[in-house]
């Protein structure tokens, strides 16, 4: 029997699910190997009977947490889909401030949001800060090739082989001019590869959307930055976009 797959979204732009819709004619291939039982962006039907849950978005509220735990209890395999789900992503930028302060900044002193579950927010969490995650499809948005790789691997019962090295490896294979050589700033050396260095290939610096690698450590990065007249503060600032709260270049193991 084909595995039953359901898509879920939490706080996100839903652009990751759009990447699946963007598979276009290959969507037909997808539904040949899996039964999609729930996918808000492309179908009306919904079922709570599923084997694989593909979860997009970060977790912002107690009600999200409850919903996510229910999803986890119903599925055999849970996939964190996209940067918001896998690492918290841009939603974590707001963790710089307390939830109360954020609420006030956005809604002012309105009393209408008091005692309303929809507005009851806590600090942003990645999916694996709430439930156990079996696999990750990283990126903002994830690249189609990796979506296909993970889905085919799951339906064949194998563990997808996701790179555990920095973007530089793929960037070199693309024969891009190194952005550091052009005195530009790039998070490629400390960001997990798998995107085929899509941003540097198109002339933009890597922003770290696939998450930071555990190594190298801070002394090493600082040394490199100094050589290029860049600062560690700038590195941290850049990394905030997707990796707020991550210990940038610190040994966190």
């Amino acid at each position, binding site marked *: 029997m084909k595995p039953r797959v359901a898509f879920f979204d939490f706080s996100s732009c839903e652009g990751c699910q759009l990447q699946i819709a963007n598979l276009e004619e290959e969507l037909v291939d997808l539904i040949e190997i899996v039964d999609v039982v729930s996918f808000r962006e492309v179908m009306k039907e919904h079922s709570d009977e599923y084997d694989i849950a593909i979860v997009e978005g970060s977790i912002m509220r107690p009600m999200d947490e409850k919903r996510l735990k229910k999803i986890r209890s119903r599925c055999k395999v849970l996939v964190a889909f996209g940067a918001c789900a896998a690492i918290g992503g841009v939603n974590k930028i707001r963790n710089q401030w307390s939830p109360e302060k954020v609420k006030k900044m956005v809604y002012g002193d309105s009393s209408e949001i008091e005692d309303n579950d929809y507005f009851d927010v806590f600090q942003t969490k990645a999916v694996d800060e709430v439930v156990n995650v079996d696999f990750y499809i990283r990126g903002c948005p994830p690249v189609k090739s990796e979506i296909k790789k993970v889905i085919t691997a799951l*339906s*064949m*019962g*194998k563990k997808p082989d996701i790179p555990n090295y920095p973007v530089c*490896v793929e960037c070199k294979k693309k024969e891009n001019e190194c952005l550091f050589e052009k005195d530009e700033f790039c998070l490629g050396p400390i960001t997990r590869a798998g995107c085929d260095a899509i941003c540097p290939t198109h002339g933009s610096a890597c922003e770290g959307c696939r998450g930071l690698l555990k190594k190298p450590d801070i002394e090493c990065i600082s040394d490199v930055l100094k050589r290029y007249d860049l600062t560690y503060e700038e590195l941290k600032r850049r990394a905030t976009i997707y990796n707020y709260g991550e210990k940038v270049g610190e040994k966190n193991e």
Partner: protein
Amino acid sequence: MMVEKVRTISKKDLDAFVDDLIQSDKFEVVGVKSKGKSYVFDDLENSEELELEYDTTILPPKKYFLPPYENMMNYDLKKPFNVEESNGGKPRVIIGMHPYDIIAIEQMDKVYQDVKEDDFYTRRRKNTIIIGVDIEKPFSRCFAGSMGTHTTDSGFDLMLTKIGRKYGVTVGSKKGRKLLHNFAKTKKAKESDVKKIAKKRDKVKDKFECEVEVDKEDWPSVLAARYEDELWGKKSEKCLECSSCTMVCPTCYCYDVEDKVSLDLKDGSRVRTWDGCLLKDFTKVAGDEIFREDVEERYRHRFFRKGCYLPMRYGFVACVGCGRCARACLPDIADPCELLNNFSDVDPTGDASKYFIDRSAKMEDEGVIHVPHSATIKSMQKLTENETLFEIEMDDGEPLGHDPGQFVEVSVLGVGEAPISVSSPPDDSPIFELVIRRVGNVTGALFSKKPGDKVGIRGPFGNGFPLEEMEKKHLLFACGGIGMIPARSLIKHVLQEDYRKKFKDITILYGCKQPCEVLFMDEVKQWGEVPDVRCELTVDKCPEGVCWEEGEGLITDLFPKIKLDKYDSKNTVAIVVGPPVMYKFVIQCLKTLEIPEENIWVSLERRMKCGVGKCGHCQINGVYVCKEGPVFNYKDVKDLPEAFR
């Protein structure tokens, strides 16, 4: 030297030559083009794009011989076993290769066209015409001058040298001469032109800003003298572990292999892609064990591979001094020139030979090497919770032709390949046995197969146990855990009626962690009943309530039971196969028994991926486990720092 003839060509005619080549549509014409502030080899649309006075390119032209991603074969997953090897494309002309890059390709020829020639590589190589150009303006980090790679007399089909407003054209091959004849308007060079070319080449050497102070010939012994130097640790502290140094290197040839399947799971392909020894997962095996885990060791490995291991194997330093790694490395710790200059006052007295074993593999040098042969699973028999015995039959009806101790690469299309030791003795039948432990994707997929299903087989690979050297000797087996799998192939072989008399007494010591992990219990008991064969079994610990009639304790506890008088040490051959941790202790016991080191044979396990000494994953110091091993004489490997870990 090949037919050497010197001609000249005006700049205008050179442009016309390039344009004609492009327009002929007979070749894919690539050459040096600018990309931002850098240069790259890329498809040429016209001669105007061609830059002959460049410093260096981001990637070397190795990408045309070993592409960053190369589709090796395609298969149809809906059919039982349908594999088609990919073929090469159109003939290609590469214009503008510097001498050091040409020398790098000559080195690559040695590696890829060594025993077990790489057919993809050879096809591309034969299909390519190389037009070199002498260096006008070297890259600031290039040190080719002190490596003797700033000019070359071989490896090219044509070589261009700028003399005044025209170019000298040195013909290096018949292919080159034919190309000139068909496409270019050249003149016979005057004596003065020939002199100018020679003078120009003589002067190239003076143009380099960097110079390596250690003589190329001394690299192996200087490095060998500094294997334990603190410099490795100091430098590697800054390493980003990105392997950019190996990616841009013209003499780094290691690759990884991945199976890719279409979204409808109907088709798939096997793709090889550049891998780098600086990456942590480079040596990771299916059980997630990483053999070269410390960045310091990986950092050192790269320099030793270039400056010591490959020189010992092939006779050349595998660095051509292009300086690309120096540019690509952000912390700037990858430059071999700078590194070797730290050792400029070291006496070249280190013993480089101890990192290398001069032993060829028992491999037939013919046929395709990457495409697996079709085979059928005849039966599957569960042995323990994690191990299953597979009976496999080659579909061509030919016997596998293995020696005890050799291994095969087992393919599950769409998933990948795994190296597995053959556990049955050699015979004339096309059927052989593998014991497979479920640890990774491939073995996991094998467990979900059923009799009648197809698998792919490549091999047998490597060296097995040396049967001739074992004849007329006592045999002492020490097997730990799944070490019994390759050992069984040899045990069953020597116990066969026709062979038994060739050997003296046989002792088999077999240790496992606990009773449920013991493989082939019934067979082991039967072996013990054969005259002059003794079997001793032990488990580290027997859980309470489990019935176990054999010994309890470590395998080393079994050694005191061996009667020394019966086992005249010099006439005993020991075969040791087990987990890495076991070797040290068992070998100590063998020494106590005064068994000479050269009588001890061990089998090592690493990430054997290609099986033919190309991909680089199983390398321990200068030794390829898949080629020189997996069975080694202990004396050969005891001093290899990376062997027993």
